């Protein structure tokens, strides 16, 4: 009565919950992110690392909405159903955008240590790599309209080819070489010559150049023929033996003059039927190595003919070109420069990629969990092989490596002065340490950190600068002799309104034999502020007797130098 029940049982056919996509692979903390799919009402848990996130099921069970959590630990979203098997991609890489929350101390002097704290400063990369990615700035300068020179001052490049990567410019590196020697086995301080394919982009205000070397991680050797070049060759052909994998190759040659081996890489693809490589006369004269890009990158048949020619016939050239000599096939690998902060080893390190797959000119890889036991910083993450054309910043679009930092004055959108930060060290994923650079401002500065996903800023940093004199030149002279005082902070840094001020330093000569300071034995000198770290004046011509004097600087806080 009222309720009737069947004797038989109805059997439910299980639903098919499926994940199809995510609204954004990255987001700020607290942002709302959507995961799309079907039958999502059967999703029971949404994990981000170890965090079990709250989520809402919307749009007829086709959308899950959640907020980017606070201080996540990994970069993988894992969607789970306790009742049914989830199809589709139930593990999605997700990268929260980092934030700066605070830094201490708020007031410090040049050289002091600042600790920055925040969220996701390790910039989780595609799921499993933990790092504090920092890229060293490399000084550079322009020459001419299209050439840029950069100076590697920090790295010890020992072996392997040299690569340059440009940031924030649309131009690509057309070619590069060393400025004065033909070898790539460089040492620190060598200048690198870069040639870009576009000149206009080089005028952009901010960009940086990174130089790094890499070792040969893995080589695969294949049989090939060697082609001897006759004297005065202008071109030669290479016959390749069939059976080569469908991948990227390098042509090696040995210079008859330097004896070193060089190579050029090209991409095997399937568009046309031939390719040319042109060598300049600089190469053939042995004085330098220079080449242009591959003229026609073409279809690389296993048994096809390939023409390599030089533009100038060298006299007495007797060496040979060895296409596929060694036949080095460079497999992709993930490269990072890891620097321990405990003062031990500093240098490049490589996160080996054990799981990669190379099929038809495309590769896939699994980013390893590179969270070491000690604090470190990753200077760059890249996947590349032997050729410059193949060098690719894997995470340029999705990664979040810290590219550079600045200390600036002004409002957040209009800097009055912007000073690059150097010596940034990552303590852990949430803490950075850097030294305050030499600036002309001292209050209400702000820190700006830039990575691939955006810019993080934190304002209200105050810098205390105390005037210090370190040297007087010359130490003796006649009346009227020019005297310079070298030191620091003779000028107060600018205030928030942009005005500067003299630091209140009085300079005077005090008679050295007068132990007790008496006004009659001191002579004030007229010194000019050359810059904030340099004062210039003259020994007074009148009213100063001959003798030994101490040059005394007195500021509002007392004697600074004598």
């Amino acid at each position, binding site marked *: 009565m009222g309720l009737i029940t069947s004797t038989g049982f109805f059997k*439910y056919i299980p639903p098919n919950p499926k994940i199809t996509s995510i609204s954004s692979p990255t987001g700020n903390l607290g942002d709302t992110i959507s995961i799309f799919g079907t039958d999502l009402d059967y999703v029971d848990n949404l994990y981000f690392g170890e965090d079990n996130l709250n989520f809402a099921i919307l749009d007829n069970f086709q959308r899950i909405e959640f907020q980017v959590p606070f201080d996540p630990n990994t970069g993988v979203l894992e969607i789970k159903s306790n009742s049914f098997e989830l199809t589709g991609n139930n593990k999605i890489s997700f990268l929260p955008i980092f934030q700066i929350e605070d830094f201490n101390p708020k007031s410090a002097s040049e050289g002091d240590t600042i600790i920055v704290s925040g969220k996701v400063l390790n910039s989780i990369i595609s799921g499993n790599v933990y790092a504090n990615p920092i890229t060293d700035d490399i000084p550079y300068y322009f020459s001419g309209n299209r050439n840029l020179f950069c100076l590697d001052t920090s790295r010890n490049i020992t072996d392997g080819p040299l690569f340059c990567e440009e940031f924030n410019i649309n131009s690509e590196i057309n070619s590069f070489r060393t400025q004065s020697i033909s070898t790539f086995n460089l040492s620190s301080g060598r200048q690198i010559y870069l040639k870009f394919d576009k000149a206009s982009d080089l005028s952009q205000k901010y960009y940086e150049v990174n130089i790094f070397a890499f070792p040969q991680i893995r080589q695969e050797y294949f049989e090939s023929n060697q082609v001897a070049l006759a004297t005065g060759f202008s071109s030669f052909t290479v016959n390749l033996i069939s059976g080569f994998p469908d991948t990227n190759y390098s042509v090696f040659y040995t210079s008859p003059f330097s004896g070193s081996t060089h190579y050029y890489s090209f991409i095997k693809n399937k568009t046309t039927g031939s390719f040319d490589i042109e060598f300049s006369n600089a190469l053939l004269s042995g004085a330098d190595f220079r080449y242009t890009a591959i003229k026609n990158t073409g279809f690389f048949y296993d048994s096809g003919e390939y023409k390599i020619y030089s533009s100038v016939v060298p006299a007495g050239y007797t060496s040979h070109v060895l296409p596929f000599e060694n036949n080095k096939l460079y497999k992709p690998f993930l490269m990072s420069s890891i620097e321990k902060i405990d003062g031990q080893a500093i240098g490049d390190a490589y996160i080996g990629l054990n799981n990669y797959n190379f099929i038809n000119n495309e590769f896939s890889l699994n980013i390893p969990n590179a969270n070491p036991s000690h604090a470190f910083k990753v200077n760059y993450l890249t996947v590349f092989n032997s050729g410059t054309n193949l060098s690719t910043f894997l995470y340029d679009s999705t990664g979040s490596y810290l590219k550079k930092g600045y200390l600036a004055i002004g409002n957040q959108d209009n800097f009055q002065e912007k000073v690059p930060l150097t010596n940034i060290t990552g303590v852990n994923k949430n803490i950075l340490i850097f030294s305050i650079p030499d600036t002309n401002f001292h209050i209400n500065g702000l820190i700006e950190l830039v990575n691939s996903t955006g810019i993080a800023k934190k304002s209200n940093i105050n810098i205390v600068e105390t005037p210090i004199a370190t040297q007087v030149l010359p130490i003796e002279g006649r009346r009227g002799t020019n005297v310079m005082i070298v030191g620091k902070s003779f000028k107060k840094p600018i205030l928030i309104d942009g005005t500067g001020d003299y630091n209140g330093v009085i300079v005077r000569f005090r008679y050295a034999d007068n132990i007790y300071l008496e006004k009659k034995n001191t002579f004030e000198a007229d010194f000019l502020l050359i810059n904030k770290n340099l004062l210039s004046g003259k020994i007074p011509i009148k009213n100063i007797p001959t003798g030994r004097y101490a040059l005394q600087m007195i500021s509002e806080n007392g004697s600074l130098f004598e």
Partner: protein
Amino acid sequence: MFYNSKNVNLKIDGQDILATEVQLSYEAQIAPYYQLGDQYAERIVPENIIQGSLNFSYYYTGVDPIKNLISRNDSIDFDYGGIKEKGYLKNYNVRFSPHNPILCNAELTLFRAPTGSFSPVYNNTDILENVVHVNNISITNFNDQNISGSYLSANYSYTTEIRPEIYIGDTQERRGVFGPRETSLNIVCDNLNPLLEVSGIKVGAVLGVAPFSTSLITQGYAITGFLTKKSLQSRSEELLTNEITIKQFNVIEEAEIYGFTPTSGRYRDKIVITGKNFNYVARVFFGEYEADSFTILGENTITAIVPRARNISNQQIRMLTLA
């Protein structure tokens, strides 16, 4: 010795009742014989018929054996702590209040003196463990006129008249003769439709009961009759309440499910259910999940759309009917 009974041992029709209160009373029917001028009756004329009642209250625990006895036209055995006899169901009442146990009350009419002796029972079972609270009062209205939006409480009751059939020389009744039966449903709601007519409105309503914290309806209380009363009550600092009463005086043949096809399916599939007397079906469930929709194709056929289900174990098809 004083006995403190935490639970009462009561069997009705052979089934245990988790009674909270039982009162058995019966009295002899005697008639004093007065002669003219007598102030005192010297002779007592006893009648053989005993008039008594067994009144008991109990909590609904998922199964209500008394409800199924409403339509019985015969006596019902009871055993109250060892005291046994037959009775006839005269009243039955169920009270539904949100977040409160479902409290039932029933009364049996007795025409015979019970036999046996009473033994107190010491059962420490906490009767509240199995008590079913009202999960939701879900009333399906078959009338075109909407009754109200939200229901506050409900009271389902059944009552009848019962007389003994006795012939000359009988020492006890031969059977119970049932009089007019009446079933009613009182519904208290918060906002009664003011346009609801009280006279001549035929209303069908079925109240489904799901145990607390579940959505599986285990009992249905149906009524199809006439709206006989509506009232509006206001009291300071209390909710405004409306009350309507539906009364039924007839019997509608019960529905029954014969089978369904296909016997398996997924969300949004259409299932054909066959049976009888489907005209009064109000709601269709696949286990605890209510069908997205259903269509009564005829007295013997209903099609229902499989609802979403989180628990996809095999489920019985359930229907709330007004029968």
